[in-house]
Structure formats: structure tokens, C-alpha cells
């Protein structure tokens, strides 16, 4: 035979989605939030993003070159990590903070655990928490040129009244990417329509969070209180972009609902009892750690089989 034909086991066709394509879609979805951050906080926000993204991409490349692994930087996941990290920083923080965070996120949280798909907690969030603990002063200082007031959550605690429209639009203090609920939702709707994420995790998280706030918040159904709790902190960015991270969230449908609910409840608890506005980051990290357990108890019932006892599986 002069030429050998290709042989492989079926199926012989592949779908249109690839890892890189998914990551690019997520980046596109983050653009409104990033753009608003730059618009609202000034060019320094852009600098933060550039520093974080470059550090993350470089760290991954250097590590892979040194350990002689295939280069994966073109799957764009490191770019997302960098961008998300920048979005969770206050604009006034020194620029080197992003670089330290980026190295920690990629090297310690992602590559040491085996690279893409293997990390057990969200790299961007873990890096943010690492920075929060190590450089608390820089990370909780939300004062900057454009906004002198406290963050909406801090204002709420002091009993100040907030303009809800300004809050939804994002015209408040806070981290670069968490202020504008509007911009975040544009990105979320885009991801939903592209089928990259689904409603299960964010919806169950937000519903449970709101439920807890209504029950235990002490303000009942008071509109401004609930909206501020929901949109004034990092919850929106977290629910739509951090919790829906594939690697660190459950793959089963039931598991996704449970995961969202657990984080929603934890976040509410941290806010109400712990009195720290960054509670959400810790809640998501805890949720990440629970994923293997959640997946174990939510194995779907196989077609045609009787429902088994969940925990035995």
C-alpha cells in the first residue's frame, strides 16, 4: 500500500468548542467589567491588569520551560487568572502587589498542583486571600483619587444611605472589578448565551444568600439593605466569574446547585457574624475544598437504573 489511511476509534468528528475558545469567551465576558474599572478608577486600573496578566502568563511559561513541560500559555487560562486577580485588587494598592499575587496564583496554586484543571482552589481568589493576609493594609485601603467614600458595605454598616442606581452602575468605592453590577451582568449574560456557564451555581448561590440575608440580616425585606448586600461587595463578580470556574466547581448538576447554596450560606454567615466584607473570598475557597465531597454525593442516577443510596457511591 502506497499510502496508509488514518485509523482511530469512533467518534471521528469533534465539536467546535476548545479550551482556548472557552477561555477567550470568558475574557470577552470580563471586558465590560474591566473597561468599567478603567473608566471609573482611571488608568492605574489598567496598569494593575497589565501587571497581573503579564506576571501570570510569564510565571506559567517560565515554570513550563524550566520543568520541560508543553507550553500551555496559549490556552489563555493564565490570562483569565491575571485579569480576575487584578479585578479583585483596590486601585490604590502598589503595582508590585499584583505581581506577587500573580506569581503565587500560578506557581503555588496552579502549577504546583499539576497545572490547568488540577488546582483544587481558584488561583485568583487564593492569591487574593494570600495578599489579604500578607499585606492587609494595602488590600483593604479603598481610598483613591476618584472615590473618597467608604465601600458600599462599609457605608451600610455605618448606617449611611446609598443611591441604589449609582450602586448598580458601579459608581462607588471598592475593588477594580466588583463595583459595577451592570457590567458584570452584561458579561454573565454573554457567557450564559454562549453556553459557557449555566445558571445553576450563580442562581442557587444568590438565592440562598438573599434568603439568609432576609432571615438573619435583621432588616427583613428592606430593599436598600438587600440590594447593597447583593451588589455592594464582591458577590456578583464572585458568583458569576469565580464560582463558575470549571476546575474548582462540581461537574454534576445536583452538585452545582449544592455548591452554590453552600457558598451562598457561608458568604452570608461571614458577612453577618464575621463582620468582614471580604467574607465571600473565603466562602468560595471553602466551597472549592468541598467540591470532591459534593461530587461524591451527587453522582447522577444512571439511565434506567434505580436511584442508589447517595452516600454509598
Amino acid at each position: 500500500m502506497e499510502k496508509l489511511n488514518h485509523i482511530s476509534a469512533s467518534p471521528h468528528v469533534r465539536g467546535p468548542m476548545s479550551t482556548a475558545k472557552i477561555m477567550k469567551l470568558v475574557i470577552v465576558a470580563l471586558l465590560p467589567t474591566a473597561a468599567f474599572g478603567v473608566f471609573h478608577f482611571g488608568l492605574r486600573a489598567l496598569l494593575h491588569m497589565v501587571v497581573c496578566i503579564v506576571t501570570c502568563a510569564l510565571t506559567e511559561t517560565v515554570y513550563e520551560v524550566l520543568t520541560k513541560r508543553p507550553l500551555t500559555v496559549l490556552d489563555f487560562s493564565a490570562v483569565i487568572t491575571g485579569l480576575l486577580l487584578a479585578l479583585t485588587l483596590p486601585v490604590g494598592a502598589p503595582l508590585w502587589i499584583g505581581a506577587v499575587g500573580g506569581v503565587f496564583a500560578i506557581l503555588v496554586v496552579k502549577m504546583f498542583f499539576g497545572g490547568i484543571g488540577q488546582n483544587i482552589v481558584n488561583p485568583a481568589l487564593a492569591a487574593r486571600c494570600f495578599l489579604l493576609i500578607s499585606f492587609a493594609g494595602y488590600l483593604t485601603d479603598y481610598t483613591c483619587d476618584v472615590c473618597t467614600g467608604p465601600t458600599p458595605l462599609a457605608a451600610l454598616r455605618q448606617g449611611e444611605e446609598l443611591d441604589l442606581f449609582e450602586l448598580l452602575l458601579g459608581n462607588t468605592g471598592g475593588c477594580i472589578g466588583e463595583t459595577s453590577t451592570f457590567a458584570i451582568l452584561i458579561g454573565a449574560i454573554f457567557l450564559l448565551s454562549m453556553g459557557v456557564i449555566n445558571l445553576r451555581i450563580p442562581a442557587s448561590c444568590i438565592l440562598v444568600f438573599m434568603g439568609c440575608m432576609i432571615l438573619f440580616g435583621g432588616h427583613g425585606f428592606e430593599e436598600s439593605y438587600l440590594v447593597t448586600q447583593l451588589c455592594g461587595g464582591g458577590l456578583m463578580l464572585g458568583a458569576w466569574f469565580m464560582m463558575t470556574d470549571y476546575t474548582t466547581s462540581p461537574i454534576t448538576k445536583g452538585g452545582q446547585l449544592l455548591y452554590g447554596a453552600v457558598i451562598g450560606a457561608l458568604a452570608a454567615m461571614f458577612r453577618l457574624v464575621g463582620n468582614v466584607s471580604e467574607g465571600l473570598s473565603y466562602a468560595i475557597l471553602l466551597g472549592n475544598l468541598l467540591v470532591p465531597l459534593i461530587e461524591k454525593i451527587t453522582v447522577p442516577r444512571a439511565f434506567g437504573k434505580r436511584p442508589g443510596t447517595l452516600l454509598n457511591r
Partner: protein
Amino acid sequence: MAYSTFKGGIYPHKRKYLTREKPVREYLPKGELVYPLSQHIGGLAVPLVEPGERVLERQMIAEASGYISAPIHASVSGTVKAIEPRMTVSGIPIPSIVIENDHQYERVFSQKVIPWQDMEPGERIQRIQEAGIVGLGGAGFPTHVKLSVKNPKKIRHVIVNCSECEPYLTSDYRRMIENPEWLAEGMKMVLSLFERAVGFFAIENSKRDAITALQLAIRREKRMEVKVLETKYPQGSERMLIYACTKKEIHSSMLPADAGCIVLNVDTVAAIYQALVFGRPLTERTVTVTGKALAHPWNFRVRIGTSFTELVQAAGGFTCEPQKFVAGGPMMGISLFDLEVPVVKTSSALLCMSKDDVARFHPTACIRCGSCVNVCPEHLMPLKLAQLAQHYQEEEFRRMNGMECLECGSCSYICPARRSLTQSIKAMRRDLLAKGKR
């Protein structure tokens, strides 16, 4: 309107436009014909002819070797050249009868056919058995065994699988457009065996012409109905089809009859019709010869035993360098390293692909997106199963219901990291099945 379907599944590019409007054309073989003795599930057929012997078209050249087996008939007249192992679609040489075509098409004197209504039910099934009819959708299970259920009264649904959910394939579609009355009459024959059953023609909603044609053909039939299903892969899988039509779920160790169902392929029903009305054994079938590498993709009525090489010529040859040949559809078909293999009873298509996705994409690390879990029609967790298969963890693989896998390929198709999920699971499953037999 929401159409009946199942949970999960994928929407691959269909590419049926290549041959959808191409009416079935008869193709007469030029070279020798090869009849592997195993074209069905069950025992190898036993040759009834010797090398050098002259045979006539439609003559039985090999008989069934037992109950679960099927006879084979010559599709041309000619001389038996040899009985020897020949390469088949599966890549394994199988003892085959080779016939030199004399191009006379001299037929055996067909016995007088009595109207099928006058036959006993047992005789009808016997005629089907003698005609060598097996499931033409791809499985090749002998049809007479399928129809001989222990308690015919328990069968409530006879489902004709008209969904043809594999991309590219259009042979069933052409059958529905061109011979809907055969299918209606064939269904009547099958229903006559199961007095309490209703007949469903289960068609995907995208095949509008076929729906109209069948609805017209059964307009006077009280026991038949056209069931319109959502266009989705793998809608035509037996278990998914039963679920979509009756909402009953069966698992791998159950038979459709356990859910009160009999599922038949479109072409099988047409073969039953021809066997009972014309006394014609199964010697030809519709084959879709398609793919972007071909000049004129077409649907052909092909004599069983014809070489695939001839079909490529019949479809006008190649317009570009073909990358891959597949017998059957792209989702579950078998890739061929050599086209010098014969069309058998279960060959529904020859696909000549101008590019090979499998070679084009390289697997990367799993990002745990969960797409495979979402699309699995069996509600399994393909990424976990593939992992267990790679480590050969038999007990855990079974406990995670790995043996329930349909091997439909949906998980491999959807995987953004291009991982060979189906392939890993399939290898493990096949190994465990073989182990179970030993």
C-alpha cells in the same frame, strides 16, 4: 412545540445535504463479490456451496448455524471462486465466500408467494429467518429472534427507528421518501405478530418530507402513528428511542421487550416487506456514499458483497486527498485502513472525509467543564469513567455504571480538551465484556 426526546445528547453538524436529495440509484457490481460468513450477531453461517460451483442470484449460499444466526444469499449469479478468510470492515479477516460475477443476474426460480395474511404467524417469522434478515441499522441482530418474544401479548409498542441521527447518513431518509407504503405494509406485518401493540414511526422533526410521506402512507391505519422527535444525537439509540416514545427506561441488561417494545430499523422493515410480499431474500441494501472528498456523493442500492472501492468509483472518485474512510456514520462508524472490504448487511454508509478531526486536534488536560456529564444520554460521568479505565479500576468502573455506556461518542465530541473519553471507556468496557464471556 416541544418534541419528545431524552435528556442530554449533542447537536453535531449533520452534513446530510450532501446526499439528502439524491434518489437511490441501483449500482451493479463489476468485480468479484465477497460474502463474509458473519454479517450478523450470532454463529457463523455454514457454506452450502463448493468452490467452482455455479450459483444463481438469490440462492442461499450459506445457512444459519443455529437459532441465533442468519443465512446468506448470493446477490449475483456466477461461480464460487473460493471460500477463504477475507478482510472485513471490522479489520479482522473472516471466512468468506467469494463469487465471480457473470453479469447474467440469473435468478433462482422463485417459489409461488402466498399472500402473507394467509400465513400462520410462525410461518411469517420463518420466512423472515429464511430471507436472512438482520437488524440493518448496524447491530445485525437476527430479526426473527427479535420477533420471537416469549409472550407476544406483552409487546405494546413496535417502534420503527426512523431517526437516523448519525450525521451524513441519508439511506433511511431516502427509504421513507421513496417507499413509505412498503414501510406501512411492513409495519402491518410486524403488528400482526403482536396483537396488542401499536406501531410508532419515530422520526426526527427535521425530516419533514419523511414525516409527511409516512403520515400519508398510514392515514388509514388505526394502529400506527408517526412520532415526531427532537433532532438530536443519539436519538436513534435503542434505549433513547424507547424513552422518547414511551418514557420507559431500560438499562444494559434489559431487552426492549422488557419495556414492552420491539425496535426495528427502517431498512429492516422494508426487507421484511420484500421478503413476505415478493419472497425476496436480503441481497441488497441502501448505502449512502458520502463525504467531502467525493465528487458526487450519492445514495446507492448496492448488492451485498460489493467492494467499497467500487462505490468510490460509482460516486465519481475523489476530488481531493481523502484523510479517512469510515464505514457507517462519523459518530459510531468504523474507520477503514483499506477500502478493499465488502459491503455487508449492516453497512449503512461509506464516508470519505477530507479532513480528520482526530488527527487535527491533540488532547489537552481536562478542565472539568462538565460538558461530558451534561451530554451523556446515560447520565454517566465520562471523565471519571475514562480516568478509571486508564487505571483499569474494574470494580469502581462497574460501580460508576461504566458498563451502561452506549459508546455513542457524545462525550468525546463535546470535550473542549479533545480528550478521547469514549475511546477509553469503550476499550475498558469491551475488555470487561470479553472477560465476562471467558
